[in-house]
Each structure stands twice: as structure tokens, then as C-alpha cells.
């Protein structure tokens, strides 16, 4: 297994398996869980956001956007 790294280090088009979700607002954590995003799930980096805005991710075929600030709290191991 690869060293865990920040989700943000993923290049667009590549995927990582979530290793840890650190500091996170509880509402957001629950919502991510609802979308199937939790430790162990695979996320794809799709696109960097406009002007430092939210990034687009995909998990289980669902596209969604979250802010950079929160994306920084997610650690993945690159697949």
C-alpha cells in the first residue's frame, strides 16, 4: 500500500482510496457518508475548482463538489 497523502495531491482523472477523514464539520461528515464517502471508499479526482473554489470528485458514480478547505482534511492512498 502506498503512503497516505492528501486527497488534493491526486491529479485530475486519478483515484485514491480514503485512508482517513480528519477534522470535519459533523454535518459535512454525515453528508459525505450519505454519498458513500468514508474510510475505505474510492474517490476519483475530477476537476479543480474555479478560482480556488470547490473541487469535483466522484465516488460510486456520483459526482459532487466540496471546498478545498475540507478536501484538505481527507487523506487517501493512491490507487
Amino acid at each position, binding site marked *: 500500500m502506498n503512503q497516505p497523502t492528501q486527497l488534493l495531491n491526486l491529479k485530475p482523472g486519478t483515484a485514491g482510496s480514503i485512508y482517513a477523514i480528519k477534522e470535519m464539520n459533523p454535518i459535512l461528515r454525515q453528508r*459525505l*457518508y450519505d454519498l*458513500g464517502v468514508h474510510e475505505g471508499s474510492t474517490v476519483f479526482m475530477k476537476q479543480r475548482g*474555479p*478560482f480556488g*473554489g470547490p473541487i469535483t470528485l466522484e465516488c*460510486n458514480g456520483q*459526482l459532487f*463538489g466540496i471546498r478545498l478547505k475540507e478536501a484538505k482534511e481527507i487523506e487517501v492512498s493512491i490507487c
Partner: protein
Amino acid sequence: MSSFALVGNPNTGKTSLFNTLTTSYEYVGNWAGVTVEKKIGDLKNGGGQLVDLPGIYSLHPLSRDESVAAQYLMEETPSALINIVDASQLERNLTLSIQLLEYGRPIILGLNMMDVAANRGIHVDIHRLQEQLGVPIIPLVARTGKGSSKVLSTLKEIPAAASPELKLDYGAAEAAITDIESLLATTSCLPNHRWVALQLLAQNPVILQALSSKIDMNLVNDISKNCEEQLQQMGLPSSLPDWIRSVRTEFIEKLCSSAMDRSSQKPHNLTERLDNILTHRYFGIPIFLIFMFLLFKVTFDWIGNPLSDVLDGFISGPVSDGINKALDLVGASSFTHALIVDGIVAGVGGVLVFIPQIFILFLIISFIEDSGYMARVSLLMDSLMEAVGLNGKAFIPFIIGFGCNVPAVMSARSIEQPKDRLLTTLLIPLMSCSARLPVYALFAGVFFQSHQALVVLSMYVLGIAMALLLCKVFSSYLLKNESSVFIVELPPYRLPQGRTLMRGTWEKGKGFLRKAGTLILGGSVLIWLLSYSGPGGFGVEMNNSFLAKIGGLMAPLLAPLGFGTWQSGSSLLTGFLAKEIVVSTMNIIYHVPNMEGLQGQIAHSFTSLQAFSFMAFVLLYTPCLATVGVIRKETSSWRWTIFSIGYAVVLAYLISLIIYQGGHLLGLS
């Protein structure tokens, strides 16, 4: 009578199915959070009632629309549930299904978006799924109505059907579940006790709240704590909600690996290609602005105004002539004659000529809603919105607000944080709704003929700019607390169906026509009566009428803004009922037979600077009566409702003052 409830994840097509199964029609769109309250309709085969609930991911609500669904399940006893499941997102959708199966009422699983799943190379083995879950599963394409007759016929048989028997083994938590069940034994009117116990242990706030007065919560807490200690000793996830979730996730993973084949799954090709352009890091926002500009070009210059001119010709020509002749024929008194022609035809007809612009605007908004672009706009706008203390999701109600502020305020329910929701609700009235459009069309048509779309666009931009500015002020001084959060689901793009667009446009436009037949009609009669009567009796010179007296009280206040006439004063006063009435009032005051005549009169009474100042004032000055009502309902606070009116009036006054006095200084009069 039987009642059935539609439950499922957001944006899985519940309302589309509701519309095909029932005789009613509700609002549909392609983003998460379209339905924000429960809607009830009658099934087409007369088999009972169907309740459409807001979309939820789990029974644990995060936003206000979601708690509607959880509350419904706790308080009502539906004959059966219809769980809509998105076949292309099976794992995620089943998380909710498990909780619904545990609920213990008969249930049908509607496997929707079979076409989307098939296109993406996802194959679901319906028989195997049915076998393992033990409930009927019906494949569906809700948008086209495929499979809906099967749902209707299955619902007929449902009262005789047995309850689902799915029972997951929660291992170390089973003892706690049994303990809670025995606590619940004496409480009446509860859904399935095992379900309640699980929801309690999972800390579902709605269920905790509902039971707080019925059972001893300290006992529940003790049971939870004991169980969590046990979990910890066994080296398992140490919080009960996490443990319950992980048991479910494991079950779903097993189920999906046996009942679903994703080996030939393809990515969302079209969606990804479109997103590469539409949400591009640098081009995304400019593209959005270009779309907005085109929206106004189409609504005004290209299609709306030419059509509107035709309609005006028709109303002021054949229709008015016909009415005049008919009145002469029946020998109507001069009073009746004046009431109908100068009051109703002028007031209502003057607003109806703007039907083309309003319907085109609604059509374009329906297109944005149905295509999937709505969620992208919230993504694009998030940085800007974050800078002023809100989040990008608030932009969805803002866009809906361009159509009408009332549904926009409702749609703010899907915003997770209460502070963000309140802030959004308070700012929505600054979004220039379709009712303000006749005012702009009238004034821009007179004073800014060659740049109509641009001038109208400037009003919308002014509204948004003020919303952002005030958002910063309110979030820094009034509503400061936790920082906002943002997460948005991006649905696949789809080409809206003509039928859906027409229906969506008509449903929005219907409201305008209804308003024309009620509030605007009533307002016109009232205004005409006030203009016809005065302290000196009936049939007075208009300058001596009650209307002139009332409007005259306002005039000195409005003078610094450039429109200190009683005519403007009374238009603005009556415009509180509905902003279109500003135009109705002007039509009656300047009583002229058609739009051209009115434009001539207005050109005499205003300069272009005054007109611009007046337009800005109408944009900002107060939410209309209906919006005030819905703000009161959604905030449940008179204080915030009055605040929303108060700040708007002050803001309108300041901005118009700046425009008029500033313009004067620049020599623009």
C-alpha cells in the same frame, strides 16, 4: 382509505413518478432538493392517496426538508412505502432502503433510471435483489412513465401483502436493541419497535425528540453507553451509530456484489465532457455570465418584446373595441363603462401584455432546472458566496427567485445550516422576480430603447450585488456564528424533454395568470375607484382624487429620489400587493388605451435618470405581500419578517438616492 408514501434519495425521480401515478402535478427538476415539503395526490386508479416526500439519504435528517420525511414515518402509518431507488447508484440508495425495510410496513422497491444504468453499462439482477430483500421490485423509467402501470397494479394488491422480513444481525448491539424494545413495549402508537430502537441507538434526532416525553431517555443513554463499552472491548467501532452503519454497509456490499454487475461500467462521458467546459476553472464563470446575458437578450430583445407588441395590439385593438361595443350595446352607465375600460382593461390588460416575456423567462428557468446546470452554478458561485459568508447552494434559491420569490424562499429549506438558510431567505427578495419585469419592460422600452436587455440586466445585477453586499454585512454583524459548509451533488446532465419544459413553464406561468385574475384585478378596481372618487364625490378630476391625496403624502419623501409625484407614490404603495400592480396603477392613472400611449405619457413625466432611479426602487423596496407571507411562514418569526421589509425599504431609498443625486452631479439629468 389507503395511503402510500414515496421515499427515496434526492434527485431519484420521486416527483416524476408522483406526477405519472397521480392526477396532480408537482414541480420537478434535476438537482437534489427540488421537493421540500410533502405533497399529496390521488392515485389515478382511485386506489388511494400518494404522498411525495422530500428526498433523503438516510432517516437522519440534516436539513429541514429532510426532517419532513423522517417525521412523516414516525407520525403516520402509511399502508405501504414505495422506495424509489436509482439503479445507477444502487449502493448509496440501498442504505436508505435497509432502514425502510426495517420500518416494517409493506414496501415496493421502484428501481428507477434503468435506462441511465443500462447506458452506463451497469446491470442489476432484479430477481436476485428481490430474492435477497424479500420485497417486490419494479424496474422503472419515471421520466417516460415506463413501469408506472405495474406500480399501480402492485399497489392494489399491497394491503394483503406481508411486511418485509429483512432482519440484519447487529451483533454486539443486539442486546441493546432488545433492551430498548422492552422499554418501548408499553408505549402505544409507535412504528415497528425494532426500527424505533435502532433509530434511537443511531441517535436520530427526530426520533429522540418524538420520544423524549414518552420514555426515560436516561435509560436509553445508559443502554447505549453500556453497548458502546462492549463494542470498544471487542475492538469494534466505538460509537453505536458508526457500528450500525458499518453493519448495514457490509450487508449492502455483499448484496451488490451478488446482484449487480458493473464490470462493463462506463464513465459519464457526456457529463464529464460538458463539465470540462461548463465548470472550467477559468471559463466556467464567464460562460455562466454569457448565459445570463443571452437569457435577457432572448427574453427581451429577440423574442419577448416583438411578441409583446403583437399582444398589445390585440388587447388595445380588437379586445378593447369589442368590450366598448358590448358595453354600448347593453347600455352600460358611464360609471360601469369607465370602471371596466379605464380600470379593469387598463389595469389588468396592461400587465397581461407582458405574458410573452414572463413565459419565456419561465421557460429558460425550467431549462436550467431540468438540465442539471443548476447544481453547477452553485459550484461556480461558491467561492464568491463563501467570501460573503454564505455557500454556493444559496445560489439555487436565488436563481429560482428570478422566476418568483415565493418558491425560492421555500427552496431554501434544502440548505443544511439554519444560519445560511435564514440569510438566504432574507436576501431572496433582492432577486428580481418576473413580477418586476413589466416595470422594467415599460420603462426600459421608453428610455433605453437601444439597450433594453442591458438596462434590464443591470437591474438583475444590482439585485445580486446588493444581496452579496448585505450578505457580508448581515453575516458579519447580525448572524455571526459557525462558518458555512458546502457540499453539492452534481447530477448527470440530461436534455430536458419538451413535455417537461412545457409543463414546468405552464405551472409557473399559471401563477402569474391567476394573480392577474385575482390580486391584479382586485387591485385595479380599487385603484380605479380611488382615482375616480375624491373628497368632492365621484367623477372628480384625478388630481383631486383620493388616490392623488394618498400618493401625495408619499411625494415629498420620494422627491429626493427623482420621482416625487403623487402618481409614483401611489403606484409604489399599491405595488406592495404585487409588483405588477405598479404598472397597472400607472396605466389607470395615465389612462391611455394602449402601451404606446402609456409610454408617451411616461416619457413626459420622467427623465431617463428618474426612470432608472424608479426602476431600482421598484426592484429593492419591499418583498411583495405573498413573499412576506412565505418569509413569515419559513422563519416563524415576525421579527425577521419585519426586518426583511425594513432593510429593503432603507436600501431602496439609499440606492435610488445615490443613483438620482449622483447622476445629477454627473450632469446626467
